């Protein structure tokens, strides 16, 4: 049964330095508040897995939390580059970042294999790409037809962190809309943390594609309203596209980035005060 606790305690208890951490959410429901809390707690040497690193990992990489990144698309959606990610890969700043790169299909297959208790996944993928020489894939052939396919190793994080719309008081979790690879990432992990918009008596689908994670598959639930900002939570908030555009300027310069992180994350005790400061700036 999932315990319902504060985000600070949960991150402190379940994310030791050096962990393999997956924080998923495909544009929608990105667990920013949990990422900020890891930055506040100065987590180190993390292996960060995520299909689309997005601004959340740009911030964590820039703040020196990450030793390694496992990913498949590292851009600022609709805007351009992730400058802190690029600075780490191109210039080793703030320190060198090891990368393990896959395609989306490969990452999805790796999580699904992890969720299925299999050591590998099989796909029609990586055909003719140079990625093959730079990542962990293997040739595999069909034992019935002899056809050549690709195998990817399963991905089972130490802890997976997601943001969802709802949890009930027993710790069952409900999310809807675009749910990406979250279910597989949670089921593949040793431990899981879910931040939620609200805790309710009964889970109620308020959009398409209702996904439910039973309490006994979740380690801890932390109520964090607005916990996906600048991403969004369908039914609760809309994506802060202006912030994503603004991030390009903030993250381009090391000093501007450092000042922004200090002001909005390091000097805010929790997500509520982060949101308050963001609100003041927007207004």
């Amino acid at each position, binding site marked *: 049964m999932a315990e319902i606790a504060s985000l600070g305690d949960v991150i402190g208890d379940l994310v030791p330095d050096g962990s393999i951490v997956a924080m998923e959410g*495909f*544009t*929608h429901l990105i667990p920013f508040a949990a990422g900020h809390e890891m930055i506040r707690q100065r987590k180190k040497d993390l292996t960060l897995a995520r*299909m*689309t690193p997005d601004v959340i990992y740009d911030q964590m990489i820039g703040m020196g939390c990450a030793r390694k990144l496992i*990913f*498949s*698309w*590292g*851009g600022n*959606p*609709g805007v351009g*580059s*992730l400058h802190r*990610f*690029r600075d780490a*890969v*191109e210039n080793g700043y703030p320190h060198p970042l090891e990368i393990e*790169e896959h*395609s*989306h*299909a490969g990452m*999805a*297959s790796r*999580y*699904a294999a992890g969720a299925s208790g299999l050591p590998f996944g099989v*796909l*029609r*993928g*990586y*055909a*003719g*790409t*140079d*990625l093959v020489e*730079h990542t962990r894939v293997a040739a595999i052939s069909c034992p019935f037809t002899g056809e*050549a396919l690709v195998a990817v190793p399963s991905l089972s994080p130490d802890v997976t962190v997601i943001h969802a719309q709802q949890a009930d008081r027993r710790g069952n979790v409900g999310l809807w*809309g*675009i*749910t*990406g*690879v979250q*279910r*597989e990432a949670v089921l593949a992990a040793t431990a899981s943390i879910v931040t939620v918009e609200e805790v309710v008596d009964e889970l109620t689908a308020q*959009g*398409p*594609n209702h*996904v439910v994670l039973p309490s006994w598959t979740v380690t801890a639930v932390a109520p964090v309203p607005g916990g996906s900002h600048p991403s*969004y939570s*369908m039914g609760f908030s*809309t*994506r802060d*596209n202006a912030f*994503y555009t603004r991030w390009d300027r903030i993250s381009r310069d090391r000093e501007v980035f450092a000042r922004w992180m200090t002001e909005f994350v390091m000097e805010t005790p929790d997500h509520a005060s982060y949101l308050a400061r963001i609100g003041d700036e927007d207004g």
Partner: protein
Amino acid sequence: MAEPPTSAGSYSSDEMMTVTAARCLQDGQVCFVGIGLPSEAANLARLSHAPDVVLVYESGTIGTRPEVLPLSIGDGELAETADLVVGVPEIFAYWLQAGRIDVGFLSAAQIDRFGNLNSTVIGPYDQPDVRLPGGGGAPEIAANAGEVIVMLRQTPRSFVAEIDFVTSIGFGRDGRGRAGARGAGPTVVITDMGVLKPDQVSRELTLVAVHPGVEVDAVRRATGWELRIADVVEVGDAPTREELGVLRDLKERTRLAHSG
């Protein structure tokens, strides 16, 4: 994103690209769409000559009919207007890999004469000059979509003799093959200057059409290799008033929806 009108008339070269791509889509086709010009083109087709084109986004939204253009692949608008929404492992396994996608749109930072695409790095992989976002869904779209439409602005820096990294396969660095990929690969490359198609035999990209007011020599100069030119180079039809009207209304709706 709109550029100033070109000498060709009262529309931008991006608009010409978008209209040309939209015209390539047939009604009822299932189309795997990315953000940006492909999304504009696919929705223009849906709102004009191809009302039953099925738009699939890698975020897991199938059969979406957005009123305004999404700014990200995972906008709520896409989920709210979709026939169904599925998880990401499923969109790649049950839908793309299974061969249910007729047409995939791709772009890139670099393309070579055999339609191979690079969106990973400029320079060596381990010591990149520029680290690009990477492949995302592109490698499997290139491999498994029935055919691929490439949209890419044409410059000597994007159309290069040797791409630094093959992110998504066209016809292979030597033009010899698709490395076992099931789809037909790139059947058309639409740029801001014209249209290129692979030669039936050699698979080398060949200029088959220029946009109104564009000189073939200009296209040649914008290409980083000795560009192959068709015996007859057609001149594409300028956007019709109706096409421009639908496209500009869509972009205006989008601007209003996302402003403030």
